[in-house]
């Protein structure tokens, strides 16, 4: 028996500790895109958040962005001007209001602009989980056939706008 073999367990243990330390230091991987990218939009039908506008549903209404937001969500305020820009560029944006109340949504839209075609109310985050989303704001790009083509996690910032516009135009 070779002597050095006796050190093998210690070496393996050192490797294990090394891997564990690396794992502890790594940025946690919550902010991953939904696994549904490339798959059909799940079926859902949300009631209207505001009486004046239809709710958002899962199926076939042409190419569109589906934006998950909340009036209580601070990064959603940072995102609002970019959504207006996307609306002006001709994109259709449907909203899913997560855990929200009509009066708060109305105030939010009055303060930060209103780019939405439909606004559905998701009071218990059911559609959020159905879409594989883990926070607000998040945005799904859906094509005319109802396939999810992209998933943007976090607020849409000015540098994301050109890319989103060209992706959306390619679907039309």
């Amino acid at each position: 028996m070779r002597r050095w073999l006796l050190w093998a367990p210690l070496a393996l243990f050192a490797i294990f500790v090394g891997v564990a330390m690396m794992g502890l230091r790594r940025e946690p991987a919550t902010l991953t895109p939904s696994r549904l990218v490339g798959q059909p939009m799940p079926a859902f039908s949300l009631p209207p958040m505001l009486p004046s506008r239809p709710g958002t549903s899962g199926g076939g209404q042409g190419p569109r962005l589906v934006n998950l937001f909340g009036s209580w969500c601070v990064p959603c305020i940072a995102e609002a001007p970019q959504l207006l820009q996307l609306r002006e560029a001709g994109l259709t944006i449907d909203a899913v209001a997560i855990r929200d109340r009509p009066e708060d949504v109305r105030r939010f839209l009055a303060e930060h602009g209103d780019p939405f075609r439909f606004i559905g109310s998701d009071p218990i985050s059911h559609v959020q989980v159905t879409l594989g989303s883990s926070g607000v704001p998040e945005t799904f790009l859906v094509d005319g056939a109802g396939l999810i083509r992209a998933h943007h996690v976090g607020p849409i910032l000015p540098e994301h706008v050109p890319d989103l516009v060209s992706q959306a135009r390619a679907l039309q």
Partner: protein
Amino acid sequence: MKALAALLLLLATPAAAQSNLPPAELADTQLPDPARERAARALMETLRCVVCQGQSIADSDAELAGDMRALVRQRVAAGEEPAAVRAWLVERYGEQVSYAPGLSAASAPLWAAPLLLLAAGALLARGTLKRRRK
């Protein structure tokens, strides 16, 4: 504008991410059927809260965790198998949502490693003991 956006992002701590709505009905209410509640509870303990690291949805106070507990209870109460509910979530969030990973190409080394290490240890011990006996 960019600076404002960055500033707002800094303010966006988890503490600010609280809506004004009450928890979902079944988030913290047990199911009337004890067997179903037990099954739902066992499933919740092995599902990862997707907004808080290292906590199960059973342990987390996050709103989304509460909403996911409600979803689990709702589906289990409706007679769905816990394994089917887990599979439904894995389809959306990937394997990382589950604390009970199945056997796959990616996880196979993890399952095999203890057995391989045990076998290597046994071989090593046998060699050493044999030599000592001589």
